[in-house]
């Protein structure tokens, strides 16, 4: 305008009049008119104040933004009818006409939340989701698993610190909400894992086969899970494997019980990777240093090797993982009926697991995930009655001699599964798919062949329906057919979630679950058995912020058609039961800088009539009260982390059942003493030459509590012996080394 005024100042007044219309036109576009004051308040559809909302006049720089009280104020220089815009990320933008005339304008905006994955309510009742998708305090990632004090880097042990899981130490598996270990299944990239645990000897739990570092996400669902998963009555552990590694690296580990080495190679274009690992575990040295109660005639020995490749596709990823394990354990314990005899139990195991998965974006909102797996497992078990000179003997006492057995068990399971998902408007989605399994079990017990074959097929469909950002429903149905059971089933699942506040939500879940009975029930001509069934009802309240999680859940679970095993071997589906309880979880990474802790508590009231139980009884694997406190603190200056876990469980029931005619009666019963354990571990991170090294030291049961898992009885139930861990404590000392193959120093030099 300065340019213009210079031009006009040299002209006389008369001349000027001629130019006025032109000047007006130009000035209008140059905004020289009187200003209009615009002010107001911005709120959301619940009447809550929103700060940081940008208010602007379309096509102009004029505008303002709402402050912490939701108010905004600005002056604008345009005139006439313009468009005013109010926008903020996560809300639907409002545009409306506004007449600017110089008189102050007051205008309020009510913005509606956009349905958005990050802010919307989620249907997660019953499950502990880990991973970064929701940004909420993740419950357990791989690093969390390895830093749970006393868990020794085992996924199952770490999950046992969450509510819903029992502290069962005499056998492997997760015993969830009154369910047996068989009722919890693990799924890797969508498909079921037939043998997730290493081979074990009686009364000693074995470790899981899979390293926590294999997975980027772990969902521990303690009930009410999606229709995509079946054949698990109580719980599903849903594991999602990692995608491409960040960089190539070589690794090695040395410890008191194992040694290992591995290589992970990332292609230069970062589109694919492959890796191999080998590990050898031998407890000979450790057992020489730390005395064990049982006498091992073959010290536990385990070879494990795995390999993988991962390929990035156009809109997805193809992943393959395979692992082969071989183990050998031989253990000798006193025979409970005769102190001059020992029971010798030897087990040789071979396991080969393969998983191939492919997920792809197909365009137009369609996603596909395809999963397949193949596994074989062989156990060679040899049970002998031996005298004190370790020679095989026969006593002519049938209940002692019948322990002698040679069992060879071959299991093979092949599965394919496909899931298609279509995103609907907003973040609603429908999902459907199917799976097919072919499984064989060949058990040869003392030359008697018990073979089972199962053709299993399932179809499922599910819809995530977001009615608003605050109200969502997940409706699903699953139908299965198993040739072994020779029955169809239809299992509906329904979840509702309602957002009660910015960070809190409530949900309600109903679901039906079916599972095939365990294979060994089908022997002795019991091939008429049907599915066992559970119905879950859950009510959940959850409050999550980025660094804190609070969760309260109440549940009721009804069991039907459980298997009863009367002494006559005519097994039936007449069992039943229930489980109900309340669980609490609190995790806080916020209150104290660098300190991460969680507390979980479970109250469980459960009874069931199944197996040998003659009436509704509290099962041996269920404690009324279970609580855990997990504390982790990392000191950055020291490069050292300290981790502590304390777990308490009230005593569990135990029984001795004696056969009378065609049923069992309770010969003896009681409750074990309370269970206490305090575990701790220390990790120290350092650099030795070019290797990054993590030193780990850990001790389980630091205070040497004498924990009793239950009792074994002699034949007539007149004598009982405690079931204890093989040693009260487990010590571990190890070093984990890794080298970036790209060598950081070279990388720097190349980059400069």
């Amino acid at each position, binding site marked *: 305008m300065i340019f*213009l005024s210079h031009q006009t100042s040299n002209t006389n007044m008369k001349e000027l009049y001629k130019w006025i219309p032109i000047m007006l036109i130009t000035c209008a576009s140059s905004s020289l008119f009187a200003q209009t004051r615009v002010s107001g308040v911005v709120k959301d559809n619940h009447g809550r104040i929103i700060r940081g909302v*940008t208010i*602007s006049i379309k096509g102009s720089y004029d505008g303002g933004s709402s402050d912490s009280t939701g108010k905004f104020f600005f002056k604008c220089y345009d005139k006439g009818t313009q468009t005013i815009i109010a926008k903020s*990320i996560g809300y639907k933008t409002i545009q409306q006409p506004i007449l600017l005339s110089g008189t102050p304008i007051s205008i309020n905006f009510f913005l509606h939340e956009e349905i958005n994955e990050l802010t919307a309510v989620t249907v997660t009742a019953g499950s502990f989701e880990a991973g970064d998708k929701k940004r909420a305090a993740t419950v357990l990632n791989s690093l969390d698993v390895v830093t749970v004090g006393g868990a020794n880097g085992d996924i199952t042990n770490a999950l046992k610190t969450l509510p819903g899981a029992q502290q069962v130490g005499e056998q492997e598996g997760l015993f969830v909400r009154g369910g047996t270990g068989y009722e919890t299944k693990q799924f890797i990239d969508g498909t079921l894992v037939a043998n997730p645990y290493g081979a074990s000897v009686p009364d000693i739990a074995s470790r899981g086969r899979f390293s926590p570092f294999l997975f980027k996400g772990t969902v521990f669902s303690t009930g009410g899970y999606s229709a995509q998963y079946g054949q698990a009555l109580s719980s599903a552990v849903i594991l999602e494997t990692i995608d491409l590694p*960040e960089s190539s690296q070589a690794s090695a580990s040395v410890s008191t019980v194992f040694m290992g080495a591995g290589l992970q190679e990332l292609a230069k274009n970062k589109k694919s990777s492959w890796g191999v690992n080998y590990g050898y575990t031998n407890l000979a040295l450790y057992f020489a240093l730390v005395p064990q109660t049982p006498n091992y005639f073959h010290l536990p020995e385990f070879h494990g090797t795995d390999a993988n490749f991962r390929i990035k596709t156009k809109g997805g990823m193809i992943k393959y993982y395979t692992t082969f394990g071989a183990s050998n354990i031989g253990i000798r314990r006193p025979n409970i009926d005769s102190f001059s005899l020992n029971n010798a139990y030897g087990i040789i195991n071979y396991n080969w697991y393969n998983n191939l998965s492919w997920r792809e974006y197909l365009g137009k909102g369609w996603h596909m995930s395809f999963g397949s797996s193949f596994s074989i497992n062989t156990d060679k078990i040899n049970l002998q009655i031996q005298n004190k000179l370790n020679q095989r003997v026969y006593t002519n006492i049938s209940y002692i001699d019948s322990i002698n057995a040679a069992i060879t068990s071959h299991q093979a399971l092949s599965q394919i599964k496909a899931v298609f998902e279509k995103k609907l408007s907003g973040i609603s989605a429908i999902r459907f798919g199917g799976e097919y399994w072919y499984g064989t079990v060949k058990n040869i017990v003392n030359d008697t062949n018990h073979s089972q074959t199962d053709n299993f097929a399932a179809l499922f469909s599910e819809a995530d329906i977001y009615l608003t950002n605050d109200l969502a429903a997940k409706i699903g149905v699953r139908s299965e057919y198993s040739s072994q059971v020779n029955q169809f089933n239809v299992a509906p699942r329904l979840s509702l979630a309602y957002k009660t506040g910015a960070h809190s939500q409530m949900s309600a879940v109903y679901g039906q679950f079916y599972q095939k009975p365990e294979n060994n029930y089908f022997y002795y001509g019991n091939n008429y058995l049907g599915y066992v069934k559970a119905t879950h009802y859950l009510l959940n309240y959850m409050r999550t912020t980025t660094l804190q999680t609070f969760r309260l859940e109440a549940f009721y679970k009804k069991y039907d058609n459980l298997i009863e095993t009367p002494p006559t071997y005519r097994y039936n589906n007449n069992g039943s039961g229930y489980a109900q309880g309340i669980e609490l979880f609190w995790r806080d990474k916020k209150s104290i800088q660098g300190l991460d802790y969680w507390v979980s508590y479970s109250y469980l009231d459960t009874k069931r009539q199944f197996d040998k139980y003659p009436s509704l009884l509290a099962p041996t694997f269920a404690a009324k009260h279970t609580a855990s406190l997990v504390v982790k603190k990392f000191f950055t200056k020291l490069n050292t982390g300290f981790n502590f876990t304390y777990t308490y469980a009230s005593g569990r029931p135990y029984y001795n059942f004696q056969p009378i005619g065609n049923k069992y009666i309770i010969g003896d019963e009681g409750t074990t003493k309370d269970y206490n354990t305090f575990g701790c571990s220390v990790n120290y991170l*350092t650099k030795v030459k070019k290797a990054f090294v993590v030193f780990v030291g850990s001790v389980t049961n630091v205070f040497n509590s004498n924990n009793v898992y239950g009792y074994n009885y002699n034949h007539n139930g007149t004598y009982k012996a405690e079931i204890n861990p093989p040693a009260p404590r487990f010590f571990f000392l190890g070093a984990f080394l890794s080298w970036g193959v790209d060598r950081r120093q070279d990388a720097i030099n190349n*980059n*400069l």
Partner: protein
Amino acid sequence: MKKVLVIVSLLVATVVNAQSKFEDAMTKGLAQMKDAKLASDLTDVSSFFERVGDAEKTQWLPYYYAALSLYRSAWVDKSLDKDKVADKCNDFITKARTIENNADLYCLVQQVAILQLMVDPMSRWQTYGALAKDALANAKNADSTNPRIYYLQGMTTFNTPEAYGGGKALAKPYFQKSVDLFKTYVPKPFYPNWGQEDVVKMLEQCK
């Protein structure tokens, strides 16, 4: 003839005026950004640049500064929800990148990723650490002579404990390279021109 001349000159005036209007806005916004003390000053600046960006539609710089000032507000006021700030920053960056894609925008992607990483470093380093690393690699592909790339790389290295492959000694060459590049760095008008003072200070800390 005289009338025609005046009309032409008036039209030129309008065009020049429009041009200088953008320049005025940029000058004003950058001055406000420099003077901003409180987080709310920075969010106001961000809102201003957002409006300029929305009105102009073909300029990436207003969106760049809208994101940068908002990013800085999260460091000034630690109580702000870093994830929310980051979402908004990334929204601006995306808008800027549809207009132009360059090393400075990639650098900003890295800065925002580090902001999110800091919320919960132990469980987020895998995701956000990788994002940050990729962003700097892309920045180098776009323009390997941008001194801010090496400043940011140096900062990440500096703040990473030695046991994880960081530390002063490893950060120093990055800072040195950044300082050297700044010596010959001449930004276009209104283009990003920050970092030189910071990197000199950092280099001193490494000695």
